[in-house]
Every structure is written in structure tokens, then in C-alpha cells.
């Protein structure tokens, strides 16, 4: 008789249906580690999947996690049992032309734990050692749940032409929005305007140093930008909201020769103003994930350069993931980042 050890995990069962079930404890290969999960944050992509049902049924979701290594495969050299770690949400093949040219976010056969393979809203997750990072002592396991979203912010910032004193508009003050705000603020940005409709997130953006916070449903954002930039428009716009209304509006908010960096994803068709793109010689860039930026994200969080304690607005238990996690985040009023305490630490 073969005994199957089971562990608890949040399993995607379809649109607006995530259930905490018993699943087999992962077994590892020689180049992998088994991680006892401490915390795992709910990502915007998890919310999108919850809303649309676009993940595979039966998948254990979650990829913004931290934990402790419980077991290491025989070929794993740099990590050991007991190490406090996080794992990269992108596992690139390291062989394709994109990986070899230093662009693993464009990998042709990447795996994404919690998206294409079982993830970390579970007591245990397995990971290839090459995508696992040891955490410094000064970084708590709770705060380490922000490593992935911060890496996903550092990647677009690195892709952009941002330079100190640039004026910036950030569309959306969810986790990616406020992390962008803090990153740019500490990088010497000029005026930072944040557009957000949720009252709680607006307050958070204000507290974290936004120069101006605008509710675009109530206020005339273009008029405010006009005034604040002496009619020039914004130097660089980061769209972390990823909704058609803001994406369509962006084109006329940046200055001539300005740049729009799209981070937030929408599945909906979005009217686009290429008239203005041509007339004003705009640059539009997309930014996906942040494989290369994990070490920097870990270092920034370790040095306290990010207000993790403010951005994480709720810590919930795994059994509460639907009621206190996904449902409130469908239309967030006060929540920013919700983190699930799995094993804690």
C-alpha cells in the first residue's frame, strides 16, 4: 500500500470558485527544493483569474510567497534545509534566445508557479533551486511576500527611460501602483500624480508620498495634469490599473515625446489613440513579470526602502481566502495587499 501524504491548498475550481482542499504533498526532483510556505500574497492576476475563470481547474494558485526549505534535492548545492526563502514567479527555460539575451520575462517556455503549475497558497510548494532566493535575516517572512510584486515594479521602471525629476502619473494605487510610487519617489522623481478611485488606496498613496492624488471619476484629471505640468503633460506614465478606461485615456496625458509603460493587464479590447501616438511621437512599452529584479527587490525590502507594513493591509488565514481575500478584492475599498498566513513565521 502507498500512503499519500496530503496538505491543505487553495485550489482554483472555476470562475469565482477557489476552495481549500487536501492535495498530495509535492515530491521533489534532485534539482528542486520543498518549501514550507509561511505567507503568500494575493496578486492582481489571481483576482483576474477569479473574476474570469482563466486558470486551469484543479490548479493550486499563489506565487507571491515566502517560506522555509524543508527538503532539498540531491543536486541542490547553494540552499539547505531551514533556509528562509522566496521563489521567483517566473521559471525561465534558460535556453531560448530570449533567456540567453537576458530577457527571461520573454522566455519561450517559462513556467509560472501558481499560474501554469501548482503554486504557494498551500502548506508546501516545490521549486527548482535555480529560482529560489535565500532571504537576509533582517527581512521578515511576512514582508518577503512583497518581493514578487516589487520585482514586477522594478522591471517596468528599469525598462522605462525614467530619470530624476521626471513628472510621473501612476494610474492605480493598488500594490503595484503604490510600490511604483515608493520606488520612483526614492529614485528622485519630480511631481508624482496618482489616479485612483478606491478611498483606502487613495489615502495610502497620499501617505506614501504622492504629490497629488486624484479620483478620476470625480475630478478632471487632464485639467489637473495641464495645471501641474504647465501644459506640457506628464513625462512618464505607469499604468498599473489595467482597465480600458484608463488605458484609452493615457495617450493624451503624456507630453510630446513622452512614455507610457503598461503594467496592468486587461483582457478587454481597448480603444487606442494612435493618432496622438504618431502626432506626439509617444513611446509605449509593456512590462511583464520581473525575473531579473528579484535580488534588487529583496535588498530594497531588507533595507526598509518600501513601506511593507502599510502596503499589506490584511493578513488572513488560508481557510478565509475566498471570503476575506478574493471577494473584497473584486472591488477594493480599503484593501491594498492581502496576504494569506499559511504556516506563518
Amino acid at each position, binding site marked *: 500500500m502507498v500512503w499519500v501524504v496530503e496538505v491543505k491548498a487553495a485550489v482554483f475550481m472555476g470562475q469565482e470558485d477557489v476552495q481549500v482542499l487536501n492535495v498530495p504533498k509535492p515530491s521533489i526532483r534532485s534539482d528542486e527544493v520543498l518549501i514550507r510556505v509561511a505567507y503568500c500574497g494575493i496578486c492582481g492576476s489571481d483576482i483576474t483569474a477569479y473574476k474570469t475563470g482563466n486558470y486551469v481547474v484543479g490548479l493550486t494558485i499563489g506565487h507571491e510567497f515566502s517560506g522555509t526549505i524543508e527538503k532539498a534535492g540531491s543536486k541542490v548545492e547553494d540552499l539547505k534545509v531551514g533556509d528562509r526563502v522566496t521563489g521567483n514567479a517566473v521559471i525561465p527555460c534558460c535556453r531560448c534566445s530570449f533567456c540567453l539575451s537576458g530577457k527571461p520575462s520573454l522566455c519561450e517556455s517559462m513556467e509560472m508557479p501558481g499560474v501554469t503549475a501548482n503554486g504557494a497558497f498551500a502548506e508546501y510548494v516545490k521549486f527548482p533551486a535555480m529560482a529560489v532566493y535565500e532571504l537576509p535575516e533582517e527581512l521578515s517572512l511576512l514582508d518577503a511576500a512583497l518581493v514578487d510584486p516589487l520585482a514586477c515594479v522594478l522591471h517596468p521602471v528599469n525598462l522605462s527611460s525614467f530619470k530624476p525629476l521626471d513628472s510621473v502619473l501612476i494610474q492605480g494605487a493598488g500594490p503595484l501602483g503604490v510600490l511604483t510610487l515608493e520606488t520612483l519617489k526614492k529614485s528622485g522623481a519630480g511631481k508624482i500624480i496618482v489616479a485612483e478611485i478606491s478611498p483606502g488606496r487613495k489615502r495610502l498613496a497620499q501617505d506614501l508620498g504622492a504629490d497629488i492624488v486624484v479620483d478620476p471619476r470625480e*475630478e*478632471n*484629471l487632464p485639467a489637473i495634469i*495641464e495645471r501641474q505640468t504647465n501644459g506640457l503633460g506628464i513625462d512618464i506614465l505607469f499604468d498599473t490599473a489595467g482597465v480600458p478606461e484608463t488605458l484609452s485615456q493615457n495617450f493624451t496625458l503624456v507630453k510630446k515625446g513622452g512614455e507610457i509603460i503598461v503594467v496592468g493587464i486587461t483582457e478587454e479590447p481597448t480603444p487606442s489613440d494612435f*493618432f496622438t501616438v504618431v502626432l506626439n511621437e509617444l513611446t509605449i512599452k509593456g512590462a511583464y513579470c520581473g525575473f531579473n529584479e528579484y535580488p534588487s527587490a529583496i535588498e530594497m525590502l531588507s533595507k526598509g526602502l518600501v513601506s511593507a507594513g502599510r502596503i499589506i493591509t490584511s493578513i488572513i488565514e488560508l481557510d478565509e481566502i475566498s471570503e476575506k481575500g478574493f471577494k473584497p478584492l473584486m472591488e477594493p475599498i480599503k484593501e491594498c495587499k492581502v496576504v494569506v498566513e499559511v504556516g506563518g513565521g
Partner: protein
Amino acid sequence: MELASKEYLKEVMERSNADEKYRELAKGENASYTFMIQAEPHKGVEKDIVLGYTVEDGVTTDIWLGERKTDFTISGKYGVWVNILTGKTGVTKAFLTRKLRVRGDLMKILKLSAATERWLEILRTIPTEFHGEYAQYNIKE
């Protein structure tokens, strides 16, 4: 009438709604607009002027001074607006040369160019007193 005075805005609304040709061209137009007329202190125009109006199926239903959320925000220096209102510069040219900045759904506003041209013709019939040095271009009855 002083440009953007309450009296002036009332006249704009009345003349627009009384003009059959404009109403026909603007039929089906449902949008709100903010105009930002930027100060030019060196020419005696000390303060920005912000006004807005709403059009519903070609009829101007509301017009106001100040800033509200609208579908379009159109901005430019005072002198650019004077040139447009006096017919020295076409609105399309002002837009294409970026002297006038339009923020909003450009495709929608470009499709309304005939209605906009007619509307400007109406505005050019309103006796208008401009501010500062631009007083020399006042529109007389």
C-alpha cells in the same frame, strides 16, 4: 461682453441652441468639455480661465465657469484662443500644430469638426472683449 463672463457664457448657450445649422451638425453629439485658457501675464492676462459646457444631442444644456470632470479638456494659451475666436487660426491647424491640446477621445472630437467650425462661427458673432493687450482684437457687433 467680457470673454468668459457669466453674461458671455449665457450668450454662447443661447446663440448655439438657436442656430439650426449647428444643431443639425451636432445632432447625436453627447459630450462635456472643459476649456482651459492659459494666462499670459506679460500680455496683461493675469489669470487662467477655466470653463465648461455639456452638449446633449446637439443642444447645449449646461455651461459653467470652473473645473469639473468632463469628457474632453482642451487647453491653450490665451492668445491661441483669441486667434481661433477671431478666425486668424483654424481650430484644426491649432490642434495639429499642438498650440491647442486636446485631452480625451480624439477620434470622437475630430468627427465633430464640422459642428465645431459652425460653433466657432456663432461665437464670432458675439461681441467680445478680450483681456490685456488682446483688447485690440475685440469682436464688435
